């Protein structure tokens, strides 16, 4: 009898079961554990229990949340609590033997940029990190998800996690994306369609020709925001592009081990006919450049649209939440999105800070001038170096953009990179939550190209007009 067709998620899950309890809980083995400067709490919990890391060889760390974007010196971090967190990642990894990409090392950067870049992230693996955007790594065909600090300590101590198996959901995007449409627009369109709780309890598999046509970096952008659809994780089937991307990366296997790994990776994609608990599809050709207008990532609209009217809401609760969002965002219903003025621009974050993002942004910035304060924060030292080798930094600087040092920066503002109350920011990050970029700050999520279009226009602008 032929084995039942299995989804990619199912295959990776089954491969990592240590114990299946009769009560439905599974002890799942974790292959890779990424750590950052916020992981100090996990190390502290481990120390309280007088325990050591079970598998320091499976841990990789880099400071990202609390590092400054204008200095590489720990001493320059003004807040003593924050400085301590960045110092502790050094001492904690040195004591435990975890690999560190430290401040000052060109490999340092945002954990979710560094993992794939170093070849730490690979198909068919389980990967966790104490950060919700761990879903990013699923772009290479890994099962990757964010956990809290207690579970971080649990993985440090046991290399395992107790999990109830999530359901599987497939989002298919078929057809060809139009000119100027990016992975960011794809994921914003998906979240706008299924909602910010649309995939709660599910692992998402992104499928279809438009997803296959995306580069690995584009897939990283899509998977990054799976959590904004409520998903446990997001993933894309590994293919020739994935394998070509990994070949030669520092932590990718070599020689015979490479061949053995590739043989396993080839078997990871979902079998033909595998059943998903839910299926959703989108037409790639219908996706336009997207902009969020509200305070939830699902509040996304095509740039050609207008600020929505709460009176059109399907029910009173939705009307109330729309009114609340519009009040916070300082927007008037009916206003065309292209007429909304922008005060500041942020290009960066684990969503959109990779070399292709910077190339797409530089293409729009070249020969133009930013009319509002605009920042570019590369995702890692290596991305920054590559961009400089290509002269992108010169293009950005000539266009009036600030070219800053790698880290999470203004996506979450934990390092002090925040806006002022009332400021409206076009941001390539992942969350437009109230206060996310500072108290009272109004965040609009866009692609890197759309962020530059706003920077050079002073208001949201359909980037396709500038590319024409």
């Amino acid at each position: 009898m032929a084995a039942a067709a299995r989804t990619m998620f199912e295959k990776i899950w089954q491969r990592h079961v240590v114990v299946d309890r009769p009560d439905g809980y599974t002890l799942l083995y974790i292959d890779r554990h990424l750590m950052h400067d916020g992981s100090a709490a996990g190390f502290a919990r481990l120390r309280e229990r007088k325990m050591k890391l079970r598998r320091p060889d499976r841990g990789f760390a880099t400071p990202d949340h609390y590092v400054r974007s204008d200095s590489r010196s720990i001493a320059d971090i003004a807040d003593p609590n924050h400085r301590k967190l960045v110092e502790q990642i050094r001492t904690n990894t040195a004591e435990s033997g975890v690999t560190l990409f430290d401040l000052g090392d060109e490999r340092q950067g945002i954990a979710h940029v560094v993992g794939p870049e170093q070849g730490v992230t690979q198909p068919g693996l389980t990967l966790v990190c104490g950060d919700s955007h761990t879903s990013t790594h699923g772009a290479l065909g890994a099962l990757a998800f964010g956990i809290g600090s207690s579970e971080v300590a649990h993985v440090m101590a046991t290399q395992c996690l107790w999990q109830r198996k999530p359901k599987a959901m497939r989002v298919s995007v078929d057809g060809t994306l139009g000119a100027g449409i990016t992975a960011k627009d794809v994921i914003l369109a998906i979240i706008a369609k299924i909602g910010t709780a649309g995939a709660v309890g599910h692992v998402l598999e992104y499928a279809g020709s438009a997803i296959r046509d995306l580069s690995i970096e584009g897939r990283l952008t899509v998977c990054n925001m799976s959590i904004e659809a409520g998903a446990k994780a997001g993933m894309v089937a590994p293919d020739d592009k994935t394998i070509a991307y990994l070949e030669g990366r520092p932590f990718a296997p070599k020689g015979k081990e490479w061949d053995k790994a590739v043989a396993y990776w080839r078997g990871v994609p979902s079998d033909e006919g595998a059943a998903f608990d839910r299926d959703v599809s989108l037409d790639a050709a219908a996706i336009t450049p997207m902009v969020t207008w509200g305070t939830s990532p699902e509040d996304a609209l095509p740039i050609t649209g207008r600020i929505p009217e709460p009176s059109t809401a399907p029910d009173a609760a939705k009307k109330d939440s729309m009114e609340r969002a519009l009040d916070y965002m300082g927007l008037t219903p009916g206003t065309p999105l292209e007429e909304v003025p922008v005060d500041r621009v942020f290009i960066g974050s684990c969503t959109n800070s990779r070399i292709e993002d910077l190339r797409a942004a530089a293409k729009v910035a070249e020969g133009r001038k930013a009319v509002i304060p605009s920042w570019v924060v590369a995702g890692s030292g290596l991305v920054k170096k590559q961009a400089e080798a290509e002269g992108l930094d010169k293009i950005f600087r000539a266009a009036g953009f600030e070219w800053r040092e790698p880290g999470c920066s203004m996506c979450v503002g934990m390092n002090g990179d925040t806006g002022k109350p009332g400021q409206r920011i076009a941001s390539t990050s992942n969350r437009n939550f109230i206060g996310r970029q500072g108290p009272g700050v109004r965040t609009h999520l866009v692609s890197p190209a759309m962020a530059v279009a706003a920077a050079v226009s002073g208001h949201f602008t359909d980037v396709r007009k500038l590319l024409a």
Partner: protein
Amino acid sequence: MEPFTTLDAVAIPIDQPNLDTDQIIPARFLGRPRDTQVEALFHDLRYTPERVPRPAFVTNMPAFAGARIVVAERNFACGSSRENAVTVMVDNGLKAFIAPSFGDIFFNNCFQNGALPIRLPAPRAAELRAALHAHPGARIKIDLASQTVVGPDGKTDRFEIDSFRKDCLLNGKDEVSLTLGYEKDIAAFEAKQRQEMSWL
């Protein structure tokens, strides 16, 4: 970990759907020691940017003083994985959360801190919030052993919880200690993986 058995306490209603963990504790408070985070709970919902208390926010209303239960809307505590969203509530006395649905990571983090997230159907959660608004300071009774919630209206609802999670909460069991009991299984898995996935 402190066991969770029963709770009979004042409950606060939180009406916003998709209330994210940035609203429960804003990111700028995360780098501080835990004992100094207590005041950060719902900070920007409780205060204006000028730090004036917003009288209309539930935790600023005297009638809700001493609350230990939150009744929320769908997708409660979505967003960032920050476990501080659970610990800051526990440190403010809030130990049980009732909502139609939760952010997955927050849901898991609750069990790590002796807190109980309860899923109830959206209409019942809405009914409970309405009752709490109508009678500020009204109490809700939770009994984990029988998996029941008794609302201010006296109506009882049964809720589902995994027996694994229930057992850990009732007995204050620590997951790491539990897992260490499976050492042989973990070692066997690792031995097998060294063969099958030797490139790792």
